[in-house]
């Protein structure tokens, strides 16, 4: 191929690499399984994916600052349990219960943020600790048993509107708000700045501490929303729900172009990244791949995607 066109093609691929990966994953699946491209199946994918995507959006904020939030799965479980518990047992009413539960999530986020921003504890360590602590709190609160008996107001959030799952609307709403915060607000610009170069940010008059504090609250709130949707969907709060959510969220963000070194990432990327994983999981289910094997395939897939991204980047740099 002509060098110029090849270059142009490569840079087009690079700019939309996560979309390209999504196509590369979807194509063989749709060829191998006739059930994949049916409306019903796609809606199932959308439902499962939107919930994880919300957590992935929150995760993207922390990744951009060069941090990470490992506590999202536990926070999701805690939020779901609190909301379900308060709604069914305290007589608090469903929506107030949800609000209290989300505030609790924000509190965990603030705790993470404080440890990381003021305490200067590495994000990995701080959120690993709160991952254990929040899971523990959930188990204490639920006494290790599911909480069921949710009312219509609660389960509504997992129903559908003319066939389209409500969580998908929630995702769209969260995505728009997150997009505006990340790409249009001062705060979002500072998030990129702090991730790009913390010292430069400080000398430009930004307070990196406040920014870091903020992103962990955002991440926890997103995780909390995911937890609420998971609860609504199962019609009950499961004490062990959300396990492994952190991995899915991190993988999605990175597949969507977020850098583990900080300074890069986007809301749309996080969503596309989640869909890559969602489509892959769905495809493997349709093809009746045993779930243990699926784990291995997903892991490999993740590594290949990151490598591909890296190769494209360095290829472009050279030319």
């Amino acid at each position, binding site marked *: 191929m002509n060098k110029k066109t090849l270059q142009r093609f490569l840079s087009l691929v690079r700019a939309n690499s996560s979309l390209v990966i999504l196509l590369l994953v979807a194509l063989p699946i749709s060829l191998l399984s006739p059930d994949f491209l049916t409306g019903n199946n796609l809606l199932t994918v959308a439902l499962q994916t939107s919930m994880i995507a919300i957590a992935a959006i929150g995760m993207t904020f922390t990744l951009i600052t060069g941090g990470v939030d490992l506590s999202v799965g536990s926070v999701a479980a805690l939020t779901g349990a609190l909301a379900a518990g308060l709604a069914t047992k305290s007589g608090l009413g469903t929506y107030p219960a949800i609000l209290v539960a989300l505030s609790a999530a924000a509190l965990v986020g603030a705790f993470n943020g404080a440890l990381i921003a003021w305490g200067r504890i590495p994000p990995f360590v701080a959120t690993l600790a709160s991952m254990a602590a929040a899971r523990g709190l959930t188990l204490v609160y639920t006494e290790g048993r599911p909480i069921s008996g949710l009312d219509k107001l609660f389960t509504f959030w997992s129903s559908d509107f003319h066939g389209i799952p409500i969580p998908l609307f929630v995702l769209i709403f969260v995505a728009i708000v997150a997009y505006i915060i990340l790409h249009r607000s001062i705060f979002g610009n500072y998030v990129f700045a702090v991730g790009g*170069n913390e010292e430069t940010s*400080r*000398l430009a*008059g930004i307070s990196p501490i406040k920014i870091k504090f903020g992103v962990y609250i955002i991440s926890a709130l997103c995780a909390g929303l995911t937890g609420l949707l998971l609860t609504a969907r199962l019609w009950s709060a499961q004490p062990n729900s959300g396990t492994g959510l952190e991995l899915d969220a991190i993988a999605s963000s990175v597949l969507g172009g977020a850098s583990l070194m900080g300074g890069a990432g986007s809301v749309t990327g996080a969503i596309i990244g989640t869909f890559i994983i969602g489509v892959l999981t769905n495809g493997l289910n349709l093809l009746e791949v045993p779930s243990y094997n699926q784990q291995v395939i997903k892991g490999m897939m993740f590594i290949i995607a990151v490598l591909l991204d890296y190769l494209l980047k360095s290829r472009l740099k050279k030319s």
Partner: protein
Amino acid sequence: MRFKMTDQTYRLELKNIVKSFPGVMAVRDVTLAAYFGEILALVGENGAGKSTLMNILSGALIADSGMILLDGNEVRITSPRRAQELGIAMIHQELALIPQMSVAQNIFLGREPLQVSGILVDTKKMQADAQVIINQLGLDFAVSAIISDLSIAQRQMVEIAKAISIKSRVIILDEPTSALSERESVKLFEMMHTLREQKVTLIYISHRMEEIFSFSDRIAVMRDGQLVGVEPTGNLSINSVVQMMVGRELKEFFPKTETEIGEIVLEAYGLRSGSRLKNASLFLRRGEIVGLAGLVGSGRTEIARVLFGADPLEAGEIIVAGQKVKIQSPEEAIRLGIGLVTEDRKAQGLFLRQSVRSNASITLFTKFSRFGFLQVKKIDRWIRSAINQLNIRTPNLEQHVGNLSGGNQQKVVIARWLALNPQILILDEPTRGIDVSAKAEIHNLMGELASKGMAILMISSELPEILGISDRILVMREGRLMAEFSRLDATQDKIMQAATGQLENAGINLNE
């Protein structure tokens, strides 16, 4: 075996080199040759393509077309490693040493001598070999010294030692003296002359005209990616070179605008911080440009940093506009109307992987926003006008700042402070790496800002610059303010003497 008819006195020939980046033609058809054992200075405005051309020679970039001959044979330089094998070494604008490692480790990085086992590094041999080079160059630090403990000048020497250790025949230095004091530069040039005696070809890029004229054998001038001339230094004058660079005549290098000096806006007494800043008192007045001179490491940057709240103040008092203040973070300093253009733009001034837009506007977000949302249009309009005013060369606002030429990067940092219009602006080496005409523009700008009532503190290692634009000059030595001169009293000699301690307590001594 091919035979060449080329003139064998050339060590190196570049023929019809072309290199373009998206949106920029950085090098256009450049043909340039260098002799055995000469010092060839490469000059040109910021963004003229000097670094790009040299990066092609050192394998960091690959030319779109063109040919390179070394000792008359065509060579293909496809990587920095290949360049090293061919005996071409480049010392970059931003030094590339590993700060946590020792001098010896850095010199032999990637080429560590091994013990007989073939696995373990022969540390003894490595240190001994490094010592030989250090001695040969007459350097005064230990081979076991850790890079981060060395001054910038010493680090530069380590880079040169590294180049020599690979038996380089061609050594390229990209703005080697921009971070050095005059004295350190002289030492560097002595070393370059020694290398020249050994038939090494040295190509060096610089914006400092005095220096180029005292030390180079020939001067090559680039403009807009083209080579506009190469002449023996003796045949040229500073004026003619500048004219070739900018394509027109420049009248004054250090224009001084006279301004009305107003009331005191900042007073500081007994400032102390860390081991570098021991005791300094000073004041700044509206409309006044104060030059802060001194050797590298004398505590000048530390003064800037404590006044800006970037480092904690251990003792002393700061009074801004009559109010005693505690400045605990840059955020607070900015609120008090203080701005700082930092010295190390890569580590402290820029977000290298982000766009020109974000870099130039980061301090403006609070000013140009409503309810926490950016007024993108206003910001863009402002940035465009700043780009025009400072003549920043960038294809568009989306360009990563890391892709701009060094001088243009510096201008982006300065742009950041313009719109905030602080009462007090501190500039630490503001024209480091900036070409003559842009330098004049920045000096003009400083004069203009001062005439509007801003108080300016400028740190500079370049005495002509200090003498040229300051209304008052302060001199530091070893963490203390040693002397103060008025514009009329100051001379290069007096400042040097105060800075090196030959003249105790000159002028009005500010320390009790």
